[in-house]
């Protein structure tokens, strides 16, 4: 559970819709950037890497919910634009397999796509800064950080979803009424206790983050030893 797939029906419709709109815009942007490059060569590449991510998800390391995602690996190998497209394909497919929500494919793509894109840029940054020989630390740190960030984005989405227009009233009502939780955060009548939610996520996730970043590091290290051309920027 290095990241969450938001399920259907827990978030308000407006934010779900917003998720689709933003994803569509980002996809349009990415596709525009890609189609200048040779499409015929890229499609099989996207296909294989997306398939690899799904294969990763079918291999459960710690049973029940801890599987690997390889999003950062995808980001490093594909580059940001292709990786985002690939994440969208993966999310669409796994939603059909009942693995994540359908209505929230848009939101999930933003969150997980951010992971891949951030992973790519962080890796490039660490590579410049650290110049390590094996690429292990660069990639695993990049993975760890981008997982942390993508989880924060997810929490952000959940947080924003609470501030829906229809809820504003009830917030006012709450503040004046029965009072809120001891730590001062808002508790919504029908909604999510955000601090409790964030705590749960931050308790459950780190094991997933660590596993994912160690595996990312080892995978990238391996690929770097065998096919350095796939990791270094010289690639076509």
């Amino acid at each position, binding site marked *: 559970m290095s990241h969450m797939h938001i399920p259907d029906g827990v978030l308000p419709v407006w934010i779900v819709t917003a998720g689709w709109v933003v994803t569509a815009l980002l996809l349009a942007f990415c596709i525009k950037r890609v189609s200048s490059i040779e499409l015929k060569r890229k499609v099989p590449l996207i296909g294989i890497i997306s398939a690899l991510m799904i294969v990763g998800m079918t291999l459960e390391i710690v049973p029940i919910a801890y599987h690997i995602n390889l999003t950062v690996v995808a980001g490093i190998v594909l580059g940001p634009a292709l990786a985002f497209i690939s994440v969208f394909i993966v999310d669409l497919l796994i939603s059909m397999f009942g693995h994540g929500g359908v209505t929230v494919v848009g939101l999930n793509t933003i969150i997980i796509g951010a992971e891949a894109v951030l992973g790519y840029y962080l890796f490039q940054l660490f590579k410049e800064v650290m110049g390590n020989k094996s690429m292990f630390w660069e990639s695993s740190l990049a993975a760890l950080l981008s997982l942390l960030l993508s989880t924060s984005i997810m929490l952000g989405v959940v947080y924003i979803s609470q501030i829906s227009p229809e809820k504003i009233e009830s917030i006012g009502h709450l503040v004046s009424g029965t009072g809120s939780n001891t730590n001062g955060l808002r508790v919504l009548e029908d909604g999510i206790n955000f601090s409790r939610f964030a705590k749960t996520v931050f308790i459950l996730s780190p094991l997933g983050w660590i*596993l994912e970043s160690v595996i990312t590091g080892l995978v990238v290290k391996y690929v770097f030893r065998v096919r350095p051309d796939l990791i270094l920027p010289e690639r076509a």
Partner: protein
Amino acid sequence: MDVSAIDYYANHGVSFLHGARALSKIIFAGLVIASVVISNSFYLLLAVYFSLLTIVIWTRLPVLKIVTIAAYPAIFALIFAAASWNGSWVSAGVIVLKALCASLAMVILIVTTPYPDVFSSIEPVLPRIIREGLFLTYRSLFVLLELTDNLVKGLRVRGGLTHGRYIKNVVNFSSGIGLLLVRGLDLSEKFYGVLNVRGYSGRISGGGRHEKTGVNDFTAIVIGVLILGAALVIKKNGELSVYDGCMLALSLAALVLSTAYVVLPNTWGRAWKK
């Protein structure tokens, strides 16, 4: 997420849903998900879940396996439910049931419809690169699954995966994934060659098969409409009206009767024959 099993059921099943067109089943799933999204009634959602279970039983596929596959999002829903815990089991149940129903509706679609048909039906709304990406991803998925199977066997035979030695296992396993990635990239080069040689110019699938709309499609859509209708009625009348009780009783009855009719004459395990 047992992709091979899902795919196998879709390609080898013989139920009325397998006989319906992909588009009808997509509409069905859409209607169910719409009702799940608009409804906050615990009883209605439970009724929807029972109805979906009834349908699963009628597909004559392994029920437990399919229910397990579709139960995955419930784990995440549980976290949301725990976070919005207000002392009432009912509102926690609503969150979990929403996730369960939506995911089961999707799984029903995918275990009764071979993927080329599903993709062909949603093709028109997708940009080309994603359309083609979907097809190639699915094709690559099965090539990679076979490679993975081979790889895991290789690791085990050579002592790379040993009970109780977690660190070594993770290191070896990661090397395996790296190997898979490198192989995968080779494969994509080859796919590229094949596309080139065979004159690819933007047409991977042959489009949906020309199927006729029949009584199966009608059934699927009618069930979907009924579910959405019930959701709308209950939304209008508020929760815990008489309607809730009726729906629940009705769906439960359907479930029990179907189980009796379909499953009991066989046994749980033997319901699915090749």
